[in-house]
């Protein structure tokens, strides 16, 4: 039996086509997904003549935004009325700045080994996204001065292609170090942190976060840069 259009669009989200940059198509109804694909193909056609893919990129981003828009009246899974507030007590030029991302980076030789499995590949992580969503997250400690060659990334919830090419797209260590060298910030924490953000929210909040907060405070970090993916 021929594949239906609905099956086709859904296949990009952990299905047979499994391209996580386009998993948003599953969140669109068939009519809207058809419009998205039509517009994207139109932009590809136009790029042959303009030589620019900027319009194509902006279009994909716009459809990602539209697909995830919860719409008016939607009830958020997690909502809070007020923001906690702890501004730094000194100028940034005197602050120690840290970095924590949900990009799934870790140092070579320090694989967090999800579910006890050594050397899990990216496709294996994608295939086990359901297991990740039920488990406690593991926070990887990454030396600030780690070489690019010793930095690894694995995450079952997003397209890591760009992060593999250049960790800075999700783990901006280089900009952080440069800010310290220029005097914009006082210093960089010795250790940076990352975890795969696709995880159990209950286990994250109750089991992991108390220890993570202690770790951040013990490192005398004044400002923490957070990057979700």
């Amino acid at each position, binding site marked *: 039996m021929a594949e239906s259009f609905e099956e086709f669009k859904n296949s990009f989200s952990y299905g047979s086509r499994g391209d996580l940059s386009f998993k948003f198509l599953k969140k669109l109804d068939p009519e809207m997904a058809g419009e998205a694909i039509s517009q994207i193909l139109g932009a590809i056609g136009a790029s042959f003549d303009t030589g620019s893919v900027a319009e194509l990129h902006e279009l994909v981003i716009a459809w990602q935004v539209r697909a995830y828009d919860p719409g008016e009246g939607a009830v958020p899974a997690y909502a809070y009325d007020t923001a906690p507030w702890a501004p730094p007590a000194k100028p940034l030029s005197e602050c120690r700045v840290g970095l924590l991302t949900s990009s799934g980076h870790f140092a070579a030789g320090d694989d967090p080994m999800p579910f006890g499995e050594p050397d899990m590949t990216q496709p294996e992580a994608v295939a086990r996204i359901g297991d990740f969503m039920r488990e406690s997250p593991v926070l990887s400690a990454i030396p600030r001065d780690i070489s690019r060659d010793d930095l690894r990334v694995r995450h079952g919830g997003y397209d890591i292609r760009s992060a593999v090419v250049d960790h800075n797209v999700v783990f901006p260590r280089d900009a952080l170090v440069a*800010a310290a060298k220029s005097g*914009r910030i006082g210093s960089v924490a010795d250790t940076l942190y990352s975890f795969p953000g696709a995880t159990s929210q209950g286990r994250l909040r109750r089991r992991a976060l108390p220890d993570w907060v202690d770790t951040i405070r013990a490192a005398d970090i004044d400002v923490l840069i957070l990057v979700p993916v």
Partner: protein
Amino acid sequence: MCHVSVGHVARAVEEAGVATVGVFVAAFRFVARDMSLPRTLITSHPFGRPLGPANRPERHAAVFEAALALVEAAQSGPALIEMPGGFGG
């Protein structure tokens, strides 16, 4: 769900007395809004590339500087601002 996870990290760390700023892609602006995060910079970038395209250090530095500037400028939270420029910078 990554953005919700980081939202919970932001709230817990800030409640413990450490200033935080998050760099979110535009598709998950609503998470920062709903979770009332202290400081959030929104970039018009695609999933998986919140700081910008690979091997574009000038764009990464500009986004990073905007996040630092938000920490300096915000007087109360939630503070949420948009990063100027598109994915190409």
